[in-house]
Structures are given as C-alpha cells and as structure tokens.
C-alpha cells in the first residue's frame, strides 16, 4: 500500500475522476441535444438511444471492450483478452497509459468515451430505428469498430500511434469514427417516412440548448481530462476548447445570419458543438491563436457540410456527419498544421483510414442487422412514433 501512495499523484487522480464524471454527463446532455430536435412523438426514443448506451457500453467495456482497446497488443491492430472482466486492471498505475493515477481511473475515464461515441451515431437514424436492433448494434459497433480504432490510435503499439498520428482527445476515435458510421447508417437505414414531403422541424429547442450547455461543460473533462494529469496541458486543453467553441458558435451564427437572414439559436448551439468536435484532436497540442482559427473555420465548414445531406439526399437526421465527421476532420488537419510535433502526412493517413474503416465496417454491421433483426420499425410504428411503439410511454401527457 505504501508503494501505491508513492506512485499515485493525488491531484492527477482527483482530476481524472472529476473528468470521468464530466464526460459521463455529456451523454444525457447529448440525449437532450438530440431529443429536442426530433418530433414530439419520438423524444423518448431518441433520448433512450443515448441513455441506454450508459448501460450497454459499460457492460461491453467491463467484460472485454477495455481489453480489446487497451490490452496487450496483437499485431498492432487489437488488444488481447488478458484484461477481460478487468482482470489485472487494478489500483496500481499502468505506466504506459497513465503513470500517476490508478489504472482503474484510466479505464473509467476511457469508458465514458466508449459510452458517448456510439450514442453520437444515433442522430443519423433518429425517429425510425428499431430499439432491439439498436442494442445489438451498440455491442457490435463497440466490438468491431470502436475498440480497434481506439487500439490503433491510443493503444500501446497501435499502428497509427506508432506512425505518429496525433489525436489528443478523440478526433479520430470519437468524432470521425461516429461521423463516418453515421453516414453508413443513414444510407443503410434510409430516409424517414415522408421525409421529402412533410416538414419535420424540431419540437423543443429548449431541450437542445440545455443539452448543448451540458455538452460544452462536459467537454472540459473530455479534452482537459485527456492530459491524464492535473497539469499545464490540461489547462491548455480547456482554454483552447472553450475558445474554439465560442468562436465556432459565433461564426456559424454569422454565416447563417447572412445566408438565411436570421441568427438562429439552433445554429449557434450547433456551431458550438462543431467547435468542440473540431478542437478535440488538437486540444493538447495547440495554443489559443490556433484555437481561434479552428473555431472560426469549424463554424463555417460545418454549416456548409450539414447542407450536403439536402444536396446528396441522405437523411442524416441530426447532422452527425456534418458536425462531428466534418468538424473533426478539419480538427485533425488543423492539428497537423498548428502542432509543432505533428506530421501532416500522418494526420491525413489517420483521417482517411478512420473514415474508410468506420464507414465500411458500419455498412457491414448494418447489413447483417438488416438481414437478421431488421433496421426499422414498421410504417405504423413510425406514424405513431417511437415513444409509444417501442417504449410504451409518452414524453408529454395532458
């Protein structure tokens, strides 16, 4: 026990525990962010997609997910099952991942990322996905897409890590992986019934704004905690995270103001999230000036990107591709441009590999689910809404 006291830095440990809680809160925040944007009859179904990820992803992570992602390396592509059931993941630090905090704290912090990443994808198939299928999707996606990408980028001897790809807090691992998966999912699941004929505006943007606030708040832990210590890097990460978010909220608002004549609240909120997603890979490596550029550009290109779906005709319902996929692609490139230790070549390789792998693997998973459980609720179910047809509840009653 005295050994432990010597190895563990108390400030670092406190910070990682607090950061874990901050990141955990992002998922119910995401639930509100998404829940406000769908039609009223689907608010609970949409919230449940995020909420239940806190359960399912935890199960996967504890049983074998953490071991696949961070366990001892097999061929630079995946971890082995030595740490399945958290065997050997104890209170003594793991020097590779976090030399000053208990290994379990690192595992817990990473678990929160495994929860929110698949929850992000659900925006692409909101208002029509079958819940039973979704549970299985969570398990398969975490196993075959998330765990490998984590291992490549952050795992000991992962091949992208070895190549020098820099991803501070999950630009590749969280946002590009979920953005690419969202594109595959939107294409496989298809459009919502009556998508092109009936207007489907958000039912309660107040929820969305509350969710945005929780996401922004939690992101301090997401990026700040990724320094894995209560140190200067953590401070830098939080400062640039906040700057990027603020500038992106404003730049989205201005672009939309010019283009559509109104500074919308949803636009400002979406811009803020785009700024957060964009700075994520760069947060530990760039300073405030770079963060201003990252944020300004993020608000603009993500605004353009969410309009892709209208041009190309896919129904990425809540714009996961345009906000997270495109935002973080910009963030990865910006890391290459502004971080001294980064190689632009390596950054591009990371981006391309992650987009292609997450896209193709998600297509395959969706195809398998389509042939077995089916992806969508019935037409009648879509008419009455997911809340009643899938969950037997309503979000609002009189």
């Amino acid at each position, binding site marked *: 026990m005295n050994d432990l006291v010597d190895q563990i830095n108390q400030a670092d440990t406190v910070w990682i525990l607090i950061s874990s809680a901050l990141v955990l809160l992002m998922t119910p925040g995401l639930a509100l962010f998404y829940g406000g944007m769908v039609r009223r009859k689907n608010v609970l179904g949409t919230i449940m997609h995020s909420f239940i990820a806190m359960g399912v992803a935890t199960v996967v992570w504890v049983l074998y997910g953490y071991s696949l992602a961070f366990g001892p390396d097999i061929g630079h592509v995946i971890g082995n099952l030595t740490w399945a059931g958290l065997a050997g993941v104890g209170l003594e630090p793991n020097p590779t991942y976090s030399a000053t905090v208990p290994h379990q704290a690192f595992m817990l912090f990473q678990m929160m990322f495994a929860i929110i990443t698949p929850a992000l994808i659900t925006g692409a198939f909101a208002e029509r996905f079958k819940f039973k299928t979704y549970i299985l999707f969570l398990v398969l996606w975490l196993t075959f897409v998330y765990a490998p990408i984590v291992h490549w980028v952050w795992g000991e001897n992962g091949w992208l890590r070895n190549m020098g790809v820099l991803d501070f807090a999950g630009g590749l691992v969280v946002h590009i992986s979920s953005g690419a998966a969202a594109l595959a999912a939107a294409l496989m699941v298809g459009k919502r019934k009556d998508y092109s004929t009936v207007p489907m*505006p958000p039912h309660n943007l107040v929820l969305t704004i509350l969710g945005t606030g929780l996401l922004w708040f939690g992101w301090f832990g997401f990026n700040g905690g990724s320094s894995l210590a209560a140190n200067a890097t953590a401070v830098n990460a939080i400062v640039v995270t906040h700057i990027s978010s603020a500038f992106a909220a404003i730049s989205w608002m201005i672009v939309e103001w010019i283009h*559509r004549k109104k500074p919308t609240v949803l636009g400002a909120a979406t811009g803020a999230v785009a700024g957060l997603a964009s700075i994520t890979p760069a947060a530990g490596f760039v300073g405030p000036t770079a963060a201003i550029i990252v944020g300004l550009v993020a608000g603009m290109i993500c605004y353009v990107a969410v309009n892709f779906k209208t041009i190309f005709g896919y129904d990425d319902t809540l714009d996961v591709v345009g906000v997270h996929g495109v935002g973080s692609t910009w963030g990865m490139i910006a890391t290459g441009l502004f971080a001294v230790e980064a190689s632009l070549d390596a950054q591009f390789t990371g981006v391309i590999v992650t987009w292609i792998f997450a896209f193709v693997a998600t297509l395959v998973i969706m195809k398998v689910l389509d042939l077995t459980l089916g992806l969508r609720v019935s037409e009648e179910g879509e008419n009455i809404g997911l809340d009643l047809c899938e969950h037997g509840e309503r979000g609002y009653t009189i």
Partner: protein
Amino acid sequence: MKKIEAIIKPFKLEEVRKALDEIDVNGITITEVKGSGRQKGIKEVYRGAEYHIPFIQKIKMEIVVNDDMVDKVISVVQDKAQTGNIGDGKIFVSNIEEVIRIRTGERGLTAI
C-alpha cells in the same frame, strides 16, 4: 342562442377579452389552435435548411350568447382584434340549441 367562434392573433387576446368583459360577456372558452389561410404560413430555418410551416399560431375564442348580443360581440371582437394586416382571423356564428350549467342544471338563457 348562438356560438361565436373567433380565430384571432394570439397577442390580441387580452384586448378582446377586456372589451368583452366591459359589455358583460365573460363566458369565454379559448383554445390554442393553428390556422392557415391567406397568410401563407411562415418560413422557419433550422441549421441552414428552410422549412415552410403552413400553419400559424392562433387563438380560438368560443363565446355563447343570446341572439340579441351577437352583433354587439361581433363588432367588439372585430374592433379589438383588427390590425389591418393579413391573418387577423375570422368570426363564425352558428346556432346553439341548448345550454346547461353543470353546477345547477339550469338550462337555456339563465345558464349562459
């Protein structure tokens, strides 16, 4: 007895209600409704995409009065709910065959 149904702009409600109160008409039922008509809906923008929303928020007032009050109520509602712009709404008059006050069971005019 007649039912007067007036579809009006929501911000005009209080003004109309006060004016009706002054002529001693205080039995009013209101509902939040949406309407379409010559005012061709509104444009809403979400994440850069424009939606045409055909229905606009309105208030429906329902007032049941004796026949001799109908013209008076119509003129009060019209006077107060008017802005002169499209979308001021409409008034519909229809027949009511019986009215019963639930508390006492009174019927007809005394129940109004």
